[in-house]
């Protein structure tokens, strides 16, 4: 089963144990990477607010923004939107658990 077919996989998914584990691991890894990038960007932005001329920080900020955009596009395509700005053919905003109920995600 591809990730696309298995798009509703969450902790309470119906797919078999092996696929569940593989897909959940992949999903957890992706969201963790997204979270790291979001955090890095937030903190770099705070630094840049008071050090706008720092080329090294600016370069790192650009790099993380690009990585985040690519990864978020990839994640949202499979697991549904992370923001309401993501276009869907079907309204998938309701499908996934909310962050306070999500456990490791």
């Amino acid at each position, binding site marked *: 089963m591809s990730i696309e077919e298995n798009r509703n996989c969450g902790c309470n998914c119906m797919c078999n144990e092996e696929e569940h584990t593989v897909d959940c691991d992949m999903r957890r890894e992706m*969201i963790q990477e997204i*979270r790291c990038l*979001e955090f890095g960007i*937030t903190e770099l932005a*705070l630094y840049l*607010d008071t050090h*706008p001329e720092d080329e090294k920080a600016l370069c790192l900020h650009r790099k993380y923004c690009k990585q985040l955009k690519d990864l978020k596009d990839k994640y949202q395509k499979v697991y549904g939107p992370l923001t309401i700005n993501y276009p869907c053919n079907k309204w998938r905003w309701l499908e996934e658990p909310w962050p*306070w109920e999500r*456990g*490791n995600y």
Partner: protein
Amino acid sequence: MWTYNKMLQYPINIKCTDPKLAKVIISQYGGPDGELAASLRYLSQRFGMPDQKAKAILNDIGTEELAHLEMVGTIVHQLTKDASIEEIEKAGLSAYYTDHGVDVYPQAAAGFPFNAGVLACKGDPIANLQEDLAADKKDFECTLAKKL
């Protein structure tokens, strides 16, 4: 304006119910040195800030505090969501439960509701920045106290 990101800034997955702990942690949500106060402090001070850098940093930190608020709310929710009525009573949360049920209400550990009196917006940039330094220090002390 803001756009919601459907994720926590740091994942929270609490497996043990502990309403007694939630009763203390809720202060970091809506108490005098909590995240709501922090966020509102910075976001309200933005408007009168004349300096470009300071305006940006008040805006961006005030925004990040909202992400912290969501994490603290999640902690309180997960610590209490499976608690039995007996556990709630034992933790001294029956009064809270009577008024707020399973919602996470912005209040201090002692039970009084969130009060904007805990933050200052003086309309004076230097006075405001001093208040921010003091608030940050208090927030830090609060975090330390919880580690003890």
